[in-house]
Structures are given as C-alpha cells and as structure tokens.
C-alpha cells in the first residue's frame, strides 16, 4: 500500500470532480459517494500508516515521483510525494476527521438543495489538503496550498445568496493571496539560490552550506505565507468572517486542518528555520501575539462560532509559538495540532448541532449565545460531547489538551521566562472564554426566542460528535513514553529539552492553577448576574470588551492602510488613463487634425485663388532670381 499512497489524493479528487459534473440525478446519492470516497481515503491512509509503523525507524519515509510536472532549462519540478512520519500523521488527521465531518454533513446539509455540490467541494478540499501535506516539492505544496484556499473560498461562500458570505469568501482569498506572495517569492528565491524547490534538498542545503541571510529571507517569506493560511497576525482578519460558511466547513477547514497548514509549513521547513534564528524569533512573536489576540477576541464575542474562531486563532498561536522554538517545540506543535484538531472539530460540530437545534421558524440557525441557555437538558448528547471538548481545550488534567498545551508552555519557559509567562496567561484566558461559552450555552437559565424548540440532533450528527469527543479525551496518549517526539524524530530531528529552574510537574501544577482561576472567574462573572438577551451597546462596555468585539480593529487597520488607498489609487488611475494616457493620444490626433484643417484652407477649389497664388509664387521666384543675379 505504501507505493499506492498517492491514491489517498486521487480518490477524493476524482469523486469531487465527478460530483461537480454529475447532473441532477446525482443529487440522491451524491453525499454518500462523497462520504465513501473520504472514508476510502482514510482506509488507504490507515493501512499505509500501519505499514510505515512496521518499518525500522530509519526507513520510515517513502518518496516517489509520479511524473515530471514542469521542466524547462534549469527549472525542474517533479510531481513528487513523500509519505513519512509527519505526513502520515496528517493523512490520518485529515481523512479521519474529514470523514467524520462528511458523515455529520449528511445530516447537517440534508435540507440544502445544493448538497451534492457541498460534498464535491469537501472532497476537493480533502484532496488538496492531502496534496499539501504529501508534497515533496515546495511548488507541489503550493499547489495544495492554493487548492485548499480555493476550497475554502467556495465553502465560505457556499450560501452565496448571502452578500456577507460572498464578501467573507473573497476576503479570505485575498488575504491568503497576500500570504501567497511570500510563499511564491520564497520558492523563487529557492530556485535562484539553490536551483531547486525540492523540500528535502532545500532544507538539507540551507541547513548546510547556504548563508544565513538566505535562510532568514526564506524563513520570513514562508512565515508570511503561514500567517495568511493560519490566520496569524497581521493576516488574521479573514478567519472570523469565514464563519459565514456552513458549520461543518468551519470545523474541518477553519479549525482542524487547513488553518493549521502554516504550522505544518514551519515544521516541515525545519532545516530552514533552524538555520535562521531571526526568522524563528519572528515565528515566536507572531505566535505569541496571535495567541493572546485570539483569546482576547474569544472573550468578547456572543456569536458562538466567532468565539470558537477566536479560540482557533489563539490555539494556532500556541502551535506557531512551539514551532518557532525549534527542535524544542516541533513535536509539540504537531501534537497540539492533532489534539486541537480533535477537540476543536468536536466543539464546532457541537456548535453546529446547537445552531441546528435553536433554528427559528425560518430554519436559519441561531448563533447568538445570548439566545441560548439551559441546553444541557434539551441536547444531552451535544452537551456531553461538547463538555468533553471543553475539558480538553482548557487542559483539564488527563484530557488531551492538558498534555499538549502543557508541553508547549513548558518548552516556552525553557526558552525564556517571559515567553512562558505569556503562554501561561493565554491558558488562563482560554479557560475564561471557554467557561463563558459553556455557561452561556448550556448551564445558565434559558433565554430562548419565541418559536424556538431546541431538540437533539439526529444520530448521523451525534455519532461523529461522540467519536470526536472520545478522541478529545484520549488524544493525549500520543505523548505517553515520548511517542510523538520519537515518531517525528526522523523528520524534525531529536527533541531538545531545556533545563527548567523547577521540575516539570511544578509547571503542570501552576498551569492547572491558572486554568482553575480562569474557570472560576468566568463562572462567577456569568452566573452571578443574569445574562441579558441582547448584548449591551458598545458605549456601555469596557474598552477591552469593545476592542475585542471589533476584533482588535484589524479590519479598520486593513481598511485604512490598504483597502481605501487602493480604491483611491484605482479611481485616480482610471481617470488618468482616460484623460492623460489616452488623452495624449487623442490630443495628438486632434492636433494632427487641426494642422490638416489649417493646411486645407488654401485649397478652396476656386481657380481664381489658385491663379493668384501662382502669380504670387512666380513673382517671388522671379524676384529671388533677380536678387541672386544682381548680387
């Protein structure tokens, strides 16, 4: 199966394309075809994973070239893939969580007349995401990178009759394109400096011979790409808007897989980043800023999906931070990425289940947590699974998030006390906003709107929730005995442990204590005073809340610095093109015309005037001759 691992991409790709061109007759079974394709991909991936597991440690990497993609002169790119411990983990995550979300979507999208198309897009997403992680060449990775971007665009804007959805989709694509400039330039720089974009060759050479300035430039350019894809500051502004997409999309693309691609990119490019301390510092800074910014935003949003999206930003910030720590953090970045994939997908799907249950008479799901409350009884399965995800994300001891976040904070303290402190603070804030979300949704008194009848979702939706909840609880086993560090060692090198001033268990205790404080604060704040059904107006809330609600003014900044100047520039240029550039051309034509008009005037057609001018001309000639002769 290892030789056929590329089939994991081909199966969903063919299925996705087929579903797109299949006519109306495909509507009845399209969703099943899509789900089976994703499941088949998972099975292939699982078999390949097991086979890889069975190989000796130094032989756990299968690379092959399917065909030559581009070859012209010195420019050569192979359609090459590599199945190694890192990509194998991703294959399982993408196809596993992906398949569960396909199943869930059968129920969630049951009443949508364009369900077949939805599944086609999901399939295409899975294919593109797998291309991204299996690529053995940066340009092939870029193919997957843009492929997931396209799928994200199509799925955010899936309900494109809503102007807000269409706008959000475009915004996501454009901000990602800004990041892509970085990616594209990085690949060009690889060709210019190293003559190849093969991931292996580039990383090996940069780590070995290339100058540090090249490594730094590559690292910073790749980071720009990662910021776009992973919604990290300063390219974060699209993620909250992206919640316009159907909730399974938010779970799969904007929580579990695609948005973590930036982290994957940094870890995969470890050869480059290890050789570029400046770029590593930049990754750490970006991660830290985003982890705090996302948590801040998460505390203030009443929209359940946006609160979760803020949380996603923040958790990816943790992963970035870990990835920026180098060999001390690579394995833990990936570990947190995997556990986050479980619990965040779980909670997003849970939120979808809640919205589904809270749908008003018009069938539109309600996302405002101020209209929720007391759903614990109405939706017991959703509550239980969501609760397990909650315990995982805040890092309740024994749950997956406890292990994965703990490791990152530990590594951060190993790097610097202040970085560790900021990461620790983030854990406390995470506990706060997640508890707020739980209280507002499930445990506080009911604040339902009229004509709303909360009910548990159908089995096809709750079964994936149960599976994901189980994974959220148990995901921590990956770190037992240092398995994940060991497993990833062939890719990222041996894990480095910095000596801490205190034993590791002290850090764990401190983290748990900070989390407990966050939980308690939120519990007190949101249970002591009743929650209003409508949010207090902006002037009535603190500056901090206002800033969080406005997503820390990221949109305003983009608007002022980029959007409006571009719009003005465009208008000015349109004006100038017509008046100046074309004006010059037309002016030239007009002057020519005027000159002709002027020259035309003597051509009157009257014989007498011609006779007169002949006479005058003759006189002039005669006089001139006379003057010459006489002189």
């Amino acid at each position, binding site marked *: 199966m290892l030789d056929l691992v590329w089939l994991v991409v081909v199966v969903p790709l063919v299925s996705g394309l087929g579903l*797109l061109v299949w006519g109306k007759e495909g509507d009845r079974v399209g969703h099943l075809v899509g789900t089976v394709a994703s499941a088949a991909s998972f099975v292939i991936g699982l078999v390949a994973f097991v086979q890889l597991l069975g190989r000796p440690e130094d032989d756990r990497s299968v690379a092959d070239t399917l*065909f030559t*993609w*581009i*070859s*012209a*002169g*010195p*420019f*050569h*790119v*192979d*359609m090459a893939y590599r199945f190694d411990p890192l990509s194998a983990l991703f294959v399982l995550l993408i196809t596993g969580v992906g398949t569960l979300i396909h199943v869930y979507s059968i129920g969630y999208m049951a009443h949508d007349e364009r369900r077949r198309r939805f599944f086609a897009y999901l399939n295409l997403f899975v294919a593109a995401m797998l291309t991204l992680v299996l690529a053995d060449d940066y340009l092939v990775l870029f*193919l997957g*990178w*843009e*492929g997931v971007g*396209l799928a994200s*665009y199509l799925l955010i804007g899936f309900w*494109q*009759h809503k*102007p807000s*959805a*269409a706008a959000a*989709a*475009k915004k996501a*694509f*454009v901000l990602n*394109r800004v990041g892509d*400039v970085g990616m*594209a*330039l990085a*690949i*060009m*720089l690889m*060709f*210019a*400096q*190293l*003559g*190849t974009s*093969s991931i292996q*060759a*580039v990383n*090996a*050479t940069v780590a*070995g011979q*290339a100058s540090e300035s*090249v490594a730094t430039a590559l690292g910073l350019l790749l980071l720009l790409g990662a910021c776009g894809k992973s919604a990290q500051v300063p390219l974060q502004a699209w993620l909250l808007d992206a919640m316009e997409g159907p909730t399974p999309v938010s779970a799969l693309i904007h929580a579990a897989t695609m948005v973590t691609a930036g982290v994957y990119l940094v870890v995969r490019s470890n050869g480059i980043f290890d050789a570029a301390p400046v770029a590593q510092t930049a990754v750490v800074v970006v991660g830290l800023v985003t982890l705090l910014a996302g948590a801040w935003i998460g505390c203030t949003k009443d929209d359940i999906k946006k609160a979760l999206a803020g949380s996603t930003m923040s958790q990816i910030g943790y992963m970035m931070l870990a990835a920026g720590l180098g060999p001390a953090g690579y394995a833990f970045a990936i570990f947190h990425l995997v556990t986050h994939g479980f619990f965040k997908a779980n909670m997003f799907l849970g939120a979808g289940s809640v919205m589904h249950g809270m749908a008003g008479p018009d069938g539109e799901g309600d996302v405002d947590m101020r209209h929720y409350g007391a759903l614990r009884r109405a939706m017991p399965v959703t509550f239980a699974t969501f609760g397990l995800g909650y315990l995982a994300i805040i890092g309740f001891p024994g749950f997956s998030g406890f292990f994965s976040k703990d490791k990152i904070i530990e590594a951060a303290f190993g790097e610097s006390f202040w970085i560790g402190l900021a990461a620790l603070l983030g854990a406390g804030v995470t506990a706060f906003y997640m508890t707020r979300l739980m209280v507002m949704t499930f445990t506080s008194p009911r604040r339902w709107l009229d004509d709303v009848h909360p009910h548990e979702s159908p089995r096809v939706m709750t079964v994936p929730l149960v599976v994901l909840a189980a994974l959220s609880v148990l995901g921590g086993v990956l770190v037992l005995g240092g398995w994940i560090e060991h497993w990833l060692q062939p890719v990222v090198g041996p894990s480095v442990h910095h000596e801490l001033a205190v034993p590791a268990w002290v850090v764990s205790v401190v983290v748990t204590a900070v989390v407990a404080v966050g939980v308690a604060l939120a519990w007190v704040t949101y249970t002591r005073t009743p929650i209003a059904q409508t949010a207090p107006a902006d002037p009535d809330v603190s500056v901090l809340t206002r800033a969080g609600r406005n997503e820390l003014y990221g949109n305003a900044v983009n608007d002022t610095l980029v959007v409006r100047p*571009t719009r003005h*520039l*465009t*208008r000015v*240029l*349109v004006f100038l*093109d017509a008046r100046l*550039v*074309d004006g010059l*051309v037309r002016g030239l*034509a007009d002057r020519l015309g005027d000159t002709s008009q002027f020259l035309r005037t003597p051509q009157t057609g009257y014989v007498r005037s011609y006779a007169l001018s002949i006479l005058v001309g003759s006189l002039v000639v005669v006089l001139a001759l006379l003057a010459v002769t006489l002189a």
Partner: protein
Amino acid sequence: MILSVLAATPLVGALVVTLMPRTAAAARSVKVVALASSLVALALALYVTSQFDVGAGGYQLTEQHEWIGALGVHYALGVNGIGLTLVLLTTVLVPIVLLAAWEDRLPASRSVNSYLAWMLVLEALAIGVFCATDAFLFYVLFEATLIPIYFLIGSYGGAGRTYAAVKFLIYNLVGGLLMLASIVGLYVVTARAGDPTYLLSDLSGLDVGTTTERLLFLGFMAAFAIKAPLFPFHTWLPDAAGTATPATSVLMVSIIDKVGTFGMLRWCLELFPGASEWASPVVITLAVVSILYGALLAIGQDDVRRLVAFTSVSHFGFIILGIFTFTHTATAGSTLYMFNHGLSTAALFLVTGMMVARRGSASISDFGGVQKVAPVLAGILLLAGLSSLSLPGLAPFVSEFMVLAGTFTRSVPAAVLATLGIVLAALYILIMYQRTMTGPLQPEVAHLRDLDHREVAALAPAVVLIVGLGFFPQPMLDLVNPAVDEVVTHVGVGDPPPRTPAELGGLTGAGAYVPEHGPHETEGGH
C-alpha cells in the same frame, strides 16, 4: 508545402462562405461550412505537429520561393517550437470562437457570411504571420491582419464601433509604419553588405553597427509594443474590446495581439540581440508597470469587457517581462504564457459575452445573484476567472510562475513587484464574480437562461485544456524548449547558476540540466 496548405485552408473556407447565398435560410449551412473549414485547419495543424521533430529544434517544414528578386524578398515559411505553439493556439481557438458566435446578433443589413469569412481570413493571416521566416513577408501579413479586424470591429461591433475601429486601425498603422522604416533599413543594410535579403536565416547573423541595430530594433519594437499592447500604448485595446463582439475580441486579444509578443521573441531578439539587451531595462520597467497598471485599471472597470481587456494588459506585461529577461526559464514561461493566456482569455471573453448578450448590458452593476439561475455559466466564469488569476492547478499558473522565477534570477525588484500582481489579480476577478454572480438575485436577471448545449460545447475544449495543461504542461514545454534554448543562446545572457546548488545526489531528476551556453557569472547577483 504543408504550411502553405494549412494557411490556405481557412482562406478557401472564407471564399466558399462568401460565395454562398446571403439569405436567412442559408445561414445555418454557412456556419457549418465555416466551422468545418476551421476544423480541417485544426486537423492539419495537428498533422503538422505530428510531422514536427520535437527533439531536433530549428525551423522545420520549411518552404522557400523567390518573390521579389530585386529586393531579396522570399515567400519563406517554416516553424520552430514557438511558432508551432502559436499556430496550434490559433487553430484550436477559431473553431471554439465560431461555435460560440453561432447566435451572435449582428447589426441589421450585415450578413453572417462576411462576418465568418473575415474571421477565417484572419485565421489564415495569423497562421501565415506565425510561419513567415522572411521579414518582408512577415511585415506584409502583419499589416494585412489589420483589415479583417477593422471590419470585424467596425461592421459587427456594438455602440461606438466606428470610433473604436478607426482608433484601432490608426494606432496600429502608426506602429506598422515605424516597422516599415526598419524593413526599408534592413534592405539598405543588407544591400550594402552584398545581396539584399529578408530571410531570417540570413538576417539573424547580420552584423550592423550598434546605432543602426538600435534604430532598426526600435522600429520593430514600436510596432510590437503597440500590438501587444505594452503600457502606455494600450489605450486602443479597451475601446476595441468594449465594442467588438466577443468572438472578435478573442481573435484580436488571444491571437493577433500575440503577434506582438511573438514578434519580439522572433524578430527583435533574433535580429537585434544586442539592441534587445540594451533596451531591456526600459522594456522590463514598462512591463512591470503594465502588470500593475493593467490590474489596477481592471479593478476599476464597470464594463466587464473592458475589465477583461485590462486584465490582458496585465498579462501581456508578464509575457513581455519574461521575454526581456533572456533566461531560459522565463522565456519558456512566456511562450507557454502566450498559449495559456490565449485559452484563458478566450474563455473569459466568451463566457462574459454570453452574460452580456443575455442581459443586454455589459455593466457589472446590472448583474447580481446570477449564480442562482445560471449555475453552469457561473461555474465556467469562475473557472475562467481563476485561470486568469493564475490559480495553481490551472494552466496559466505554470507559465506565470516560470516567468516570475526566471525573472527573479535576473532582477529581484522586477520579480517582487510583478508578484504583487497576483494579489491584484485576485481582486479584479473575485470582485467581478462577487458583484455579478453572488448576493440576492436581481429582478432584472431573474429570467436569465443558463448556458445551452452549444455554448457548453464551445467552452468545454478551452476548459479541458486549461485544467489539463495545469497538471500536464510538459508536452507543450517539450515543444518549445529547443526553440527557446536557441533564442536564449542567441542573445547570450542566459540563466545565472544558483549560488549554492543543492545537493541532489539521491534525488530525482532535478539539476540534470547543464546550460550549454556560459552564463555570465558577474550578472547573477542581487
């Protein structure tokens, strides 16, 4: 001989179409005959490709007859990989265009016979231009293409067609006049050196003084820069594309404008390599300006046809940038770009044309929510748009990235600025798509029909090629690589070797390339 037959085929078709009765009853058979003759030409072009020895390089399938002995003018045809690529583009696009134009509403009193006949004449001339290996013959055919386009715009276009047609004609005639001066100059130069000649093979080794070379170069370059069009000589294009029928726009922008960039590659670089290198800083600057300027102007358009025209200004900027970088990577990219841009712009012009014909307006603000009633139209518009913004997986990405990567090795600032174009491209396509296709369905477009079978059949080949060549561009690259290598070697600049070549020991294929010509070490830096 086969090239002459190929070029003559559409001409025969045009003749037959002209002689057929001009009644409404005969219109259908007229269209069938026109389409059939373009399909025969396509079949012949494929046959030519099969006869072409890809590995051998050089000009093949040549034919040569003396035409005007006193001036040293020959009727000489021949194709290399670059010329053949454009011949293929021409013969692939014309049947698509004819099928898409099946129901074009023409101004009253205009017959479909001459409409289609002009298109076929244009096809024949285009094939001739791409095959000509005699500068004089090239010039004559180059100028002759103006006639069919003038009539196609002036007789069959929409409102403002006369102004646009005259503007097109005069603008291009001015360029042609400057080229004529250089053509005369070539006679003087070659006559002085011995026998006058216009044969490419004789001219490409010509040694003239630096000043003369530059002057001759400028004459050619002016004509090509207007044709391509390069900023600031572009203003005729939006006017022409804004009034012409979609079919005319495709023939003009996808095929005939390529004569400009093709001419730079064949005539400027082959005949005047020194002058081309001399002019390259200015040309590269103008190309980068074209990329950004065209994109920004496209964002600002409300007329969807003018929007597409401005995207082409941007795309031609990329092609010219790649040509004047003189690296193998970028030149191969530019050649491929000409083919890919032809496909993607054809799809874009045709599908927007179908939108415009249905709505009776080309204004973007007159649409909204069309996706709801016409999902197939929306899907193809999006795909054509994504190919225009060079999404990886679609054909134009490969060529655009090669141009950028090849440019980067020579000029980092030019490559960085050009790369910003990819963000602007996302804006001009997605804003247009958002405003026309998404959002609530506007009542004025609620009745819009989706594409019918004929329209889908017309667009399908372009769509299939756009996707197929995105993943498998290599057959095309194999075709152009030897020719590109000859041009690049001829100019003598070439690809700077990588600073720190990666160790590719156990890795596949990459790095097998060894430049045959010694690139100048000193110019690799940045």
